[in-house]
């Protein structure tokens, strides 16, 4: 249940301005949706609410059902169970050609026998928009994606990025309530993809149309979206802002799917009040942690830390020992950061990622160097232990 995972529990732990008082209008509402292919259940009891005007991303590994969700909304697949409301209207049984949504396909799906202009004009012609208006609206749409000079070209004469833009223009020219984008940038090379991410985001802000973007690329999801839904095996794992998803993952799957994370097993020893607990980590290190929900003494928990949240200290002589001791297994210079793999005394391996700062531009580790691992109190994220 999407709306349950996006519970108060997350908001208290996050210093975000997301504490919206007024509930925004819901433009897409999927309720109790089940979808099967042959005997296999792709989605079961799936719910989703997308707000009007937001950039919403459905993120998940391939085969998680994210594209199915999009195809159900577009009308390319019939529902086995459940319903779909678009802008307050039940369109569960309405065929694709009469739904107020448009799709940008992963393969672009431009009509090869039509010029760029006729591709973009296709939807307007179907809607029987007057000719003069078609001309001006297509011109406007092509101007928006900076392709006015290409109006007379055939799709095969365009580059990948240009085709992508035509596909977007062809969809938005119809002024849909919701624009569906299926892995739309994945066919582009890395540089172009970054550029298109920015353009897409700007376009969405300018048009004010709700975007539902499907991707398996977590970086893309975090950088573009207002809200992200993380899916696995046909189920919603978490819905929230990119920051909530990254900093307060609801479960181990979300935590591991979005970026890198280090997970300690812990047991709650004592409540310290104000959502603070004393936890025994890995059975040998006692640490105070801050959480966002109530635990009982003896509860098993996962304490999670992002690589950039770890603080590594080299041991020179006798220093105050804080945290876990271990040694450097691997160090990788990435330009912006120094990424290291540290093996703790009990064999657990941690990933750390540290930025270079002005004080010590030459800082580096030797392989096998003995270090201490620590973190700033409160930066950890605690969830109940999962099987």
């Amino acid at each position, binding site marked *: 249940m999407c709306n349950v995972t996006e519970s108060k529990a997350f908001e208290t732990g996050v210093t975000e301005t997301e504490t919206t008082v007024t509930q925004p209008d819901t433009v897409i509402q999927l309720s109790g949706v089940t979808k099967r292919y042959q005997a296999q259940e792709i989605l079961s009891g799936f719910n989703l609410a997308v707000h009007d005007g937001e950039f919403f991303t459905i993120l998940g590994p391939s085969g998680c059902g994210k594209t199915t969700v999009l195809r159900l909304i577009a009308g*390319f697949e019939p529902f086995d169970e459940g319903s779909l409301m678009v802008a307050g209207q039940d369109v569960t049984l309405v065929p694709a050609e009469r739904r107020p949504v448009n*799709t940008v*396909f992963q393969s672009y799906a431009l009509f090869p026998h039509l010029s760029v202009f006729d591709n973009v004009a*296709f939807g307007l012609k179907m809607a029987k928009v007057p000719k003069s208006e078609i001309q001006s609206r297509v011109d406007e749409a092509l101007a928006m994606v900076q392709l006015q000079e290409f109006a007379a070209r055939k799709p095969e004469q365009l580059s990948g990025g240009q085709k992508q833009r035509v596909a977007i223009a*062809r969809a938005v020219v119809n002024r849909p309530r919701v624009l569906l984008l299926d892995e739309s940038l994945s066919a582009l090379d890395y540089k172009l993809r970054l550029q298109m991410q920015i353009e897409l985001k700007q376009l969405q802000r300018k048009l004010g149309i709700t975007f539902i973007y499907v991707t398996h690329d977590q970086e893309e999801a975090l950088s573009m979206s207002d809200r992200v839904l993380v899916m696995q095996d046909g189920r919603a794992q978490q819905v929230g802002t990119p920051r909530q998803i990254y900093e307060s993952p609801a479960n181990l799957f979300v935590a591991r799917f979005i970026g890198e994370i280090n997970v300690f097993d812990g047991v709650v020893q004592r409540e310290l009040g104000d959502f603070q607990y004393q936890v025994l980590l890995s059975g040998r290190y006692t640490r105070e942690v801050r959480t966002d929900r109530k635990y009982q003494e003896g509860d098993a928990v996962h304490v999670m830390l992002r690589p950039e949240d770890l603080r590594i200290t080299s041991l020179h002589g006798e220093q105050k020992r804080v945290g876990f001791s271990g040694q450097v297994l691997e160090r990788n210079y990435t330009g912006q950061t120094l990424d290291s793999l540290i093996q703790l005394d009990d064999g657990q391996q941690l990933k750390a990622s540290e930025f270079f700062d002005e004080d010590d531009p030459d800082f580096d580790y030797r392989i096998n160097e003995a270090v201490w691992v620590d973190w700033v109190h409160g930066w950890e994220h605690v969830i109940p232990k999962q099987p």
Partner: protein
Amino acid sequence: MIPSNKPVLSLGSGLRWLFIAGVMAFLYLPIVVLVVNSFNESKYGHKWQGFSFKWYEKLWHNDALLEAFFNSLTVATLSATCATILGTLMALAVYRYRFRFRQSASALIFVVLMSPDIVLAITFLIVFMALGIQLGFWSLLIAHITFCLPFVVITVYSQLKGFDGNLLEAAQDLGAKESQVFRLVILPLLRPAIAASWLLSFTLSLDDVIISSFVTGPGFEILPIRVFSMVKVGVSPEVNVLATLLMLISLVVVIIVPLLLRRKT
């Protein structure tokens, strides 16, 4: 073998031209003899007795042969058209829709394709007999449509398979009804395959002898059968003329088809 950058089989320039000339002669000499003979005054092809349009004139007045020719054209045109329409629809159905006997339908098409002509011919004959259909124009037309059908289905289906599957969904997504999807997207994209199928069917129908000889009756004679019976008593020069004309027609077709196909791009 001596290592060298040249191809292993490198012929001298003279030898190469001789080889090419040999191949050309092998391929085209019979046709040249045929065309030349159609203008030969002599009734027997082994001696040149002067240039003449005599046999052309004679063909023009050979009503039986001309009738057979026009019968052939009629059957070829009709069967090619029917087979193309039916085959295109069938390919579309198999490609676009999911129905109960989808798999069997596409498998059965191959059965017709793989069957030897003589087997098909006998099958048709038995069916027509059983149904009490008189052998003649209609039986011939039905048989020709049937044996052309698989070629159409396979040609059109392979083109459909080459489509980006999302194209049709994109059209729907942009508001096109099923009929508009067909008219505005599928049909224009299939045009080359449809044209090729029609021409293929036309040719198949025009020169079929085996099946036709089984399923047509004495009342409706077509060209290949007429010619076949004519040459039984020695090659008439009129047949040379006819062959020359047919070759001219196919030459025109061979030139037109690539032009039609080029319109795609």
